[in-house]
């Protein structure tokens, strides 16, 4: 029965080969590119150039701020939506489909949709004008209005990526047996107490997954920012792209990529520590 013993490994092999080719190798290459400086051999020159760049400070600040603002909003919204869905009897599937439409739209298309809303001759200004609230179009997406830029991107990101958190949380909620909530109700727990003491602790594994996934993706935010603001709101992934495509300096682009990777790893580690999942929850 040799074959049976090796079967799982054999079946896993294609995905391992895939991951090695498309993730591990580019990863190693990114480190290699970032840490080499021409003939000089190993050096931190690329990181020095990255850190002393005109846009680096703004890009790092904007990326962290966006993540700090967008991710909590998305988790709270998705949690509320998931709980609402639990209470809906008829048309639940239809509602879920509608809410997950943004998932099927590419970042770039989402950016263009929101650009057509916020631009000078866009839908928002047309609406405000029709309502008599403004006389001349307001400029929402101008470098002179950093708050407007930030809010526009945050709104677009919340619209675009809340659905992924929602889907994870809906799945998580469905795994929680109804008996727990019913038992709590029998003992006189209020709806808030049931949510706080029963649902939320049992939802922790899903919340952890959703938080890790969303935060890592938030560090990589790119297409929406690019379409809505151009370079007016620099972000880390956008700078990596600029260094690669516009300035043609792959080493510094790789340094940005390594920085984003570092941030993602740090965030993942933080969530694994902060949102501790007790073993009995995962095995129930």
């Amino acid at each position, binding site marked *: 029965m040799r074959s049976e013993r090796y079967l799982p490994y*054999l079946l896993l092999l*294609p995905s391992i080969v895939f991951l090695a080719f498309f993730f591990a190798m580019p990863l190693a290459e990114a480190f290699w590119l970032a840490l080499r400086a021409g003939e000089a051999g190993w050096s931190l020159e690329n990181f020095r150039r990255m850190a002393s760049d005109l846009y680096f400070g703004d890009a790092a600040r904007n990326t962290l701020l966006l993540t700090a603002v967008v991710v909590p909003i998305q988790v709270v919204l998705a949690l509320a939506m998931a709980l609402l869905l639990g209470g809906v009897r008829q048309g639940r599937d239809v509602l879920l489909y509608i809410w997950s439409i943004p998932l099927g739209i590419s970042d770039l298309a989402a950016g263009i949709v929101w650009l057509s809303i916020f631009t000078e001759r866009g839908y928002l200004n047309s609406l405000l004008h029709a309502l008599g609230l403004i006389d001349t179009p307001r400029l929402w997406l101008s*470098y002179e209005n950093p708050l407007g830029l930030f809010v526009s991107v945050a709104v677009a990101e919340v619209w675009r990526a809340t659905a992924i958190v929602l889907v994870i949380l809906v799945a998580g909620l469905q795994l929680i047996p109804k008996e727990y909530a019913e038992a709590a109700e029998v003992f006189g727990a209020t709806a808030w107490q049931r949510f706080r003491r029963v649902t939320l602790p049992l939802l922790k594994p899903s919340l952890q997954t959703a938080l890790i996934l969303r935060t890592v993706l938030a560090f990589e935010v790119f297409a929406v920012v690019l379409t809505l603001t*151009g370079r007016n709101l620099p972000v880390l992934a956008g700078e990596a792209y600029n260094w690669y495509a*516009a300035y*043609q300096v792959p080493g510094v682009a790789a340094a940005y990529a390594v920085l984003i990777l570092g941030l993602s790893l740090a965030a993942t580690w933080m969530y694994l520590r902060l949102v501790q999942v007790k073993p009995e929850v995962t095995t129930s």
Partner: protein
Amino acid sequence: MRQGWIVALASVMLVMLVTAVPPASASQSSVLFLSTQLRPIEEAEKMRQSILAGYPGHVEFIPVEPVPFADRVLAETRAGRVMISLVGGVHGDFPALVNAGALQPADDVLSRLADRGFVPAYVELGKLGTPYQQYIPWMQATYIMVASREALKYLPPGANLDSLTYGQLKAWGENLLKATGRRLLGFPAGPKGLMHRFFQGYLYPSYVKSTVTHFRSQEAEAMWKEFTELWAYVNPQSTSYEFMQEPLLAGEVWVAWDHTARLINALRERPQDFVAFPAPIGPKGRGFMPVLTGLGIVKSAPNPEGAASVIEYLTRPDVQLAILREIGGFFPVIQVAMPADLPAGVKLAAEAVAKQSASPNAVPSLLPVGLGVRDGEFNRVFVDTFARIVLRREDVRRVLDQQAEKMRRIMAEAKAPCWPPDEPSTGACPVL
């Protein structure tokens, strides 16, 4: 039994994965044509469906961005499996290919095209400083101004569109702001806009008659101060604009500067609403930048004869005029009379281009020459200088001194000698 089956299946899948079948090579009769030009989908479609449709063979036209363009040609050359036969790009796309020895000299192709009447200066540019013809001139374009007719009544007194100065452009913007309450001048200063060409080919030559050597001169300092004043009348959304035809058609800006190919749709769609005119004049004359595109044959190409015959086809007088008529922003590189039946918008652009290059105080500049992969960093010096001085209001002298340092490093690393409008240099172009 069952397990054995699955093992067999998994093994087959694995074998298929690791010994992926290479794609079938292009058939010998077809020509794979990679181009950094005519990328917008409408232009690419017109190229395929009407321009190349008249060519007797099959041409696969693939437009790509400049970085993947160079990457792909160089990767195929290095791998020794060349699929591309013909490449088309602007002058600046070629040095990287020539330096890597990826192009096959095209002197024999040029000698067969002696009757075309190419602009001699363009033929010389196509050698890229080597003894051989690296590319054959294909199309030319430049950057001009377009204004909405509504804006004309706010022109400052005494100003003439054909001899507008930068001072008058500023006064015009001021009049427009007073009359409408809006900032109606516009520039393509977005991430993919061509604003760096405005500084390199228009502002610097008009004020300083130099782009590199006198980058941080007194004249440059005065120029940046004046341009900062002018910027007060520029629509702040300019920092996201890429093709000025769109904000012009939307009415977001009334006066704009851009590449002819990025203005032409406004002129074609509503020729009665817009006027085209040459770039403004500064203290040192009218700086402007002609843009040359060319066609080259890849070394060890699968179909070099096909590539040569496509070059012969694309440089025919009737095809050159068809490109102008159908696509619009690109003008012939050969001697050919302009027909009377050009579309109205194309005619507007063609007249402005002719006036600009024929102007007696013209200061023509070339696209950067010989910078290779440092082209992007060179452009960045100008864009960052603009961002720091005009958008962030940093001290002009300090910014110019710091950016000049970066420029000096780029020139030294690229060992690039000066190009017009700078005086010729021996060795790397100096930054004083």
